[in-house]
């Protein structure tokens, strides 16, 4: 029983990271109709940036994480202006997907160039250590990971549903042309969405790296997991992205307990493809966007 609980806990922790990636992707998608596969790359880039910053300055991991989050919030706004916006103005959605594949590949290449092909990890946030509750070993970093997801979800929800800016963002997501006619600067709204997704990528990367090892080759698994979670939840649905991420993490963990971890991935993805075929809009999406 405790064994099963342990699996559930570690699966949910992985799922939190996937959920954060998917939440960033789905937020950007709802505003700009762009699936940013590179989100998975930014997670690893943020994590390794934090590692290097921490090693060079000796500052506390928590302070380093905060700095990296601000860096990436600003950085993704720049990436949107330089890479994504020029593409989105010219390219069809299919080609836009390939632009972000290119971005993902470029980030992986940059990581290989700067950090080499070694895996990196970092000191955990305070207090560190593990606690045992009901026979389940809980790394204190797990609390941070769950907390960061909760904080992101709460922030996004309050922003979208309780502020004027959020109302404008929802209007832009619902009908960009109409929003523009009403005087909304949709490019500014895009920048805000990208900044938020950058902050979420950095949060995911900096909080997960103390409990795992990351390197240039981990960008694709994260991108794929986030993409799957976002689509399984229903593109554009924030609740769907979070649930999709958690379910994906849980499925992978549960199946890797009984069969090998590679086959667990097969089952998890197979289940999600089946979900897509049976309920193509994902768990929380709208059917009309998927088929015609």
């Amino acid at each position, binding site marked *: 029983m405790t064994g099963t609980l342990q699996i559930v806990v570690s699966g949910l922790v992985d799922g939190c990271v996937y959920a954060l990636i998917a939440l960033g992707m789905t937020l950007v998608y709802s505003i700009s109709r762009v*699936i940013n596969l590179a989100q998975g790359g930014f997670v690893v880039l943020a994590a390794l940036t934090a590692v290097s910053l921490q090693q060079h300055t000796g500052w506390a991991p928590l302070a380093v994480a905060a700095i990296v989050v601000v860096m990436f919030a600003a950085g993704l706004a720049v990436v949107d202006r330089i*890479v994504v916006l*020029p*593409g989105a103005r*010219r*390219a069809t*959605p*299919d*080609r*836009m*997907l*390939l*632009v972000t*594949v*290119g*971005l*993902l*590949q*470029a*980030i*992986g*290449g*940059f990581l*290989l*160039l700067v950090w080499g092909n070694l895996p990196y990890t970092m000191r955990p946030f305070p207090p560190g250590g593990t606690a045992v509750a009901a026979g389940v070993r809980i790394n204190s970093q797990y609390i941070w990971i769950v907390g960061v997801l909760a904080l992101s979800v709460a922030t996004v929800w309050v922003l979208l549903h309780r502020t004027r800016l959020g109302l404008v963002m929802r209007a832009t997501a619902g009908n960009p042309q109409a929003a523009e006619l009403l005087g909304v600067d949709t490019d500014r709204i895009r920048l805000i969405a990208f900044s938020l997704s950058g902050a979420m990528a950095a949060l995911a990367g900096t909080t997960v790296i103390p409990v795992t090892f990351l390197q*240039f080759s981990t960008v*694709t698994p994260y991108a*794929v997991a986030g*993409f*799957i979670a976002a*689509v399984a939840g229903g*593109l554009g649905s924030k609740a769907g992205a979070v649930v999709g991420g958690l379910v994906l993490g849980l499925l992978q963990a549960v199946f890797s307990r009984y069969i*090998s*971890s*590679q*086959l667990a*991935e*097969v089952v998890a*993805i*197979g289940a*999600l*493809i089946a979900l*897509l*075929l049976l309920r*193509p809009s994902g768990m929380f999406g709208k059917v009309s966007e*998927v*088929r*015609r």
Partner: protein
Amino acid sequence: MSTVRVPGRGADQSVRGGAGAVHRAAHGPGRLRGPVAALAAIAVAAVLPFVVPGWVGLLVVVGVFFLVVLGLDLLTGLSGQVSLGQTLFMALGGYGAGLLTLRLHWPTALATVVMALVSALVAAGLGTTLLRLRGYYLALATLGLAVITESLASGLGDLTGGPSGLVAVPSLQLGGWTVFSDRANYYVLLVVCAAGAWFVAGIQRGGTGRALSAVAADTPAAAMLGIDTARYKTRAFVASAVFASVAGSLYTFYLRFISPDVIGVTVAFSVVIMLALGGSRTLVGPLLGALVLQGLPQAGQTFSRWEPLVAGIVLIVVMTYFPRGLWGTAKALARRRSTP
């Protein structure tokens, strides 16, 4: 048919009907230009191993990927269905042929053909279900196939040899001839690629190509015109699967082993990148894409570290500013110059 707006070749020809006629007249009998260009290309390819003897190994790999990308061109370029999962069929061809020859001692050529048929069946089965999805959702489902392929290849250790792969696969045997050297493999691939290119060119020119273009342009409109869109999409998927399977088999017989890295998700991405980079809806585009992407890492030891970064940036720039790819852009430039 004439009322449908069909992009690419079809539209070019109908819109530029007048200009095209003049253009052709200026260059002599237009019907002969295609075959002459093809023969010239094959002749150049045939002497290439003697011109650059040190590069034959690279050319073999380029040939393998040209074949995969050529198949994908039918599916993505012509009928507009994105597939990120071509490695599934490369793996079926590669692992299937490897296992049949290694464990059951089948003749290599027979194993290649049988696995191509198996891939066709798998594609037909998957196609009827997956191709109902569109856009991002199809991309996701096929990406799922690529991930599953890599995971199965390393997860089914008893069958596939796990992460270290399937080793000691025999070389290709054609009659009494063992295709072992780089050069021999190159010539086999040259023949297969030429046949593949001929097939794709025929499809593009014929009624099937028109129908597939119509599906790409506007699926409901194509269906309204009486085109069985589901069947055409599935056919394109099956053809692309056969190309990938044969390429996978030949690659395995050339390398004499196959491992999860050979058919990994990164490879699945790079096949799509090759098509986009070179330019879809053409024959030269896939070749150019395969050549650039496989050739880049060979440009020097120090450069090979830069290769993923450069490839990524090139893909971004080409996709953003040159939607027709390198070859499509070059052709457009040449056309603009010749018709002032």
